[in-house]
Each structure stands twice: as structure tokens, then as C-alpha cells.
């Protein structure tokens, strides 16, 4: 279901980028432009901190189900998904966790959690960091760290890797992640899904952070 939203999400990202470009073009020395398009060291690792607050889950139908997505930039055909409380490659199954790597509509690889428990605890808070990083083999690695959940325990350590000729993460966009992630089933059973903070690590060892909370879903606003 998230796949269906990709086209719309990408369109929004592209429109947003062009809006930013138009803004930058109107003021050649504009600070925003300089910050957005700094030509310094390249980004080698992105970390997103996520918070999922479950409301009242329905264990018998494995609701809710959530999928988050990351990509190195909004234009690439390769992207990564993280599924919570269901797996759908090669076939759908309730419960558990799954990492997926895609090129367009072709699945490149996936990894399931070792067990497949189903969400059943009211008001459960699930927090994790998902990262996208250059790896030593010249490809990209998508994985999970700093994870905490009553149902799934500490699910840190899951990761998948792909080979690709372009591993530069300098055009990564958290807006892409926000627009292409969501509650894929049972949204009425989720209180909130939010990207809390994003950190970018660079080839010279420096780091930047964006503490703007990006609400993917909130029962308070219904989006």
C-alpha cells in the first residue's frame, strides 16, 4: 500500500524541491540555498529516530501494520522499506518485522525478524533508529539500531545491503521518508507515528542534525 503512495510522494518531493529552487534563484546569495546545496564533504550515513505509539491493537487481525521508507535521494529507483507487525515478501504473513530493498517494483532482498510476534499490548511505545549508510563493499546498507519494543524486544541489528553504483547520500530528504511512510492497515489503532530526529554523517567525520518532528500519522489530526 505504501508502494501506491510512492508516486504521489515523489511528485510532492519534486514539487517541493522545485519550489525551493525557485526561492533560491530569486536571491542568489540566499542562505537557504547555501544550506540546502552546500558542496562540502559528501554524506555517508543517515539516521532517522522514529516513535510509534500504538493505541489499541487487534491481535486477531494483526492491526495495526506500519511501513517506513528511506531512499538515498527522491529521484532514485532504489528504496528501502521497514515493515512492522507484518511481512509481505515473498507473501503476506501477520506479525513480525521485515526489511526490504527495492529497485522500482523489483524486490532486491529482504530480511525477516527471527520471530513473528503480533502486536497485542495497548499503549505500546515502539522506538527505533533506522539508518541508510555506505558500506565497505561499495553499496548501501539499510538497518535498525537503538530499538525498543515490548512486543518485539530490542530488534536492533537487522540490516540488508544492496550493491549500487551511486552511494552518495547528499541528496537524502527526510520529507521523502515522511511522505512515503505510513500506517498501512488499522490506522485507527495507532496514536502517532513520527520521525523525531534525523542525523547526517559526512565523509570528513562531521555530523548535522534536524530536530524537526515530522508527523507521519497522528490520531489527533487524522493524517
Amino acid at each position, binding site marked *: 500500500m505504501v508502494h501506491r503512495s510512492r508516486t504521489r510522494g515523489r511528485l510532492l518531493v519534486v514539487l517541493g524541491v522545485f519550489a525551493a529552487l525557485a526561492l533560491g534563484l530569486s536571491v542568489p*546569495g540566499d542562505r537557504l540555498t547555501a544550506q540546502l546545496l552546500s558542496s562540502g564533504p559528501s554524506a555517508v550515513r543517515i539516521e532517522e529516530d522514529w516513535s510509534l505509539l500504538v493505541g489499541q491493537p487487534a491481535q486477531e487481525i494483526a492491526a495495526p501494520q506500519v511501513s517506513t521508507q528511506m531512499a538515498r535521494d527522491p529521484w532514485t529507483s532504489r528504496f528501502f522499506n521497514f515493515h512492522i507487525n507484518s511481512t509481505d515478501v515473498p507473501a503476506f504473513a501477520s506479525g513480525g518485522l521485515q526489511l526490504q530493498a527495492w529497485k522500482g517494483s523489483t524486490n532486491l532482498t529482504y530480511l525477516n525478524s527471527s520471530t513473528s510476534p503480533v502486536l497485542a499490548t495497548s499503549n505500546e511505545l515502539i522506538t527505533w533508529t533506522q539508518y541508510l549508510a555506505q558500506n565497505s563493499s561499495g553499496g548501501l546498507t539499510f538497518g535498525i539500531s537503538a530499538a525498543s519494543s515490548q512486543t518485539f524486544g530490542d530488534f536492533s541489528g537487522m540490516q540488508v545491503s544492496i550493491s549500487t553504483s551511486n552511494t552518495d547520500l547528499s541528496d537524502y530528504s527526510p520529507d521523502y521518508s515522511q511522505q512515503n511512510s505510513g500506517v498501512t492497515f488499522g490506522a485507527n489503532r495507532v496514536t502517532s507515528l513520527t520521525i523525531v530526529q534525523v542525523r547526517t554523517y559526512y565523509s570528513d567525520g562531521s555530523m548535522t542534525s*534536524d530536530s524537526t518532528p515530522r508527523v507521519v500519522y497522528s490520531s*489527533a489530526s487524522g493524517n
Partner: protein
Amino acid sequence: MTVRLLCLAVALSAATVWGLVLQAAPPAAGDDAFPTRAFGALPGKVVGVLASNGQAVLAREGRQGPADALCLGSGAGSYRWLYVPVAKKPLIGGLNLRVGPKGDKTRRFDSLSMASPQTVRQWGVTQPYTLVEVEVNGGLGAPPGENFVATGMRVLEGSREYPFKVTDVLNRVRTAYQAALKEKEPAIGQAVAEARKDVPPGRKPAGERERTELLFVTWLPEQQSLRVVIQTRTAETAPGPVPPPAAADREQPPPRRPATLYGAEWGMTFELSRPDLTEQGRELPLRQFHKEILLPVPPPAKTAPAAPTPGR
């Protein structure tokens, strides 16, 4: 001379609130008054300045957040983000945060938003800059890091113990700073012109100038003083050639052209102490800077269809 005049102006104005004495000090070589990702542990309660408009200062150290978010300036370190509990429409349903000065425990906090003018109104904060006492992570304190949860807040300024308002003090300091800046303009203009000479070959100055003001305010609990740093950044851009159009490839980002951002930075730092103590206004070094950036390339202009010729 400039500094002495400035200090006199600040003394005359600030003394009405603080009863302060001013002393001028020369700029220190290599002085950098803005902290860079410097975070110490916080106790269960901390006094600091709840500050708005921190984006430019935060961007300097590679940090960003919501435009309306408030930060806490306490001690000589960097601004901290504050999450605050809210009853309606939280941005974050829940967070597990490390608490205590050593961060050896974790505590869950629910229904949070960032501190903003709206979310801190529950504690009577109404000014853009306010001296407050904040309860940190439910009184457990926080380890070094960018953020914590403000579970309680109390406005201190305007009281018998703190008989001033930070926003008013800042307005006076800024007025004095602007006067000093005006005197410094010729030197700043010369520094920008010199920086322009060092633009790499093939880059042509666009002729437009951008000016940014950075304001950093913090309360130093040990010294019982307010530190204010103001810096003015004057920048110009020299774009390079437009790259040739790339082959159509949907995986390629929009084209960009290299450019050099250059200019000069100058500012001052002030420390305003409690009555009967000494305040210093100190000039920061005038510095040139150069930075390589990428600018967006405008899409090709669409040719308007030719208007029909009358009579044909």
C-alpha cells in the same frame, strides 16, 4: 574608541535596570563566542534563557529544527531543544529518553511537542526571551545531549531576585550594537572587498549582498550573569559557469552550478552581571570567509508562442 562609546551607551541604558559598570576589552585573537555542539549534563532543575529565533545560531553548528521552536540557553554550552508535555495535538506520541546526569536510566514521556510560544504559554511565558527555571526530565536531570523534556517551568524574571526582563535588556544591547556596527561598516566593507579578490577564477560576483544577524543569549548560573553574543555576517555570491544540460535521467537530481560564498563576519559579546558586578562588552575579530556552495540552475525558459499577426 568605538568599543568605549558602545560600552558607554550600553552602560547608560542597562544600568537603569541592572546598575552595571562597563569595561571595554580588546578583541581576542581566534575568539569564537558561539559554542559548537557543546553540551554538559543538566541537574533536575536549571536556570536559563528560553530563547526564540535560534535558527541561525543553530545552523552554524549544523543543527536545525522548527522555525518557531524555542531553545534553552544555560551555561556556556550550546542551545538545547526542549520537548514539553501538551494536552492536545502532540507532535510526538511518546519518547524513551535517557535521564539523569549520567544518562544511565531511561524514562518514557508521552504526548510531547517542541517548546514554542504556544506550548510554553501554559507556564506564563509570553516574551521572545525569558529567564526561566526549568524542571528537567521530571526532575531527574539529563545527560549531555541536544534535548530534554521540560516537565515544568517557572518564569524568574521581573521578580525581586531577578529585577529585569531579558527581552528589554536585549533591546537595549541591540541598539548599542547597531551603533557600533554603523561605525564598523567601512572596515566590514573593506573586508568584503578583500574577500572578493580571493574568489577563484571563473567565478563572477553576482553583485548582491546578504546580511544575517546571529544572536545567542544564555544565562551563566555560576556567574549569575547574562551573556549576549551578536554577530553580523555580510555575504556575497560568485557563481561559476552553468553546467551543460545532462541527458534525461530520472535518477539524476536537478542541475546545479558551483559558486563561492564569501564575505566578512564581525560581532560583539556582552556579559551583564547582577548589580554591583562588572559587565564587559568585547569586540569579536573581523573575519573574512569563503565557502564553496552549489546553486540551483533555472529550468530552460519556455518560448512563448508567437502572437498572430493582425490582418493575416
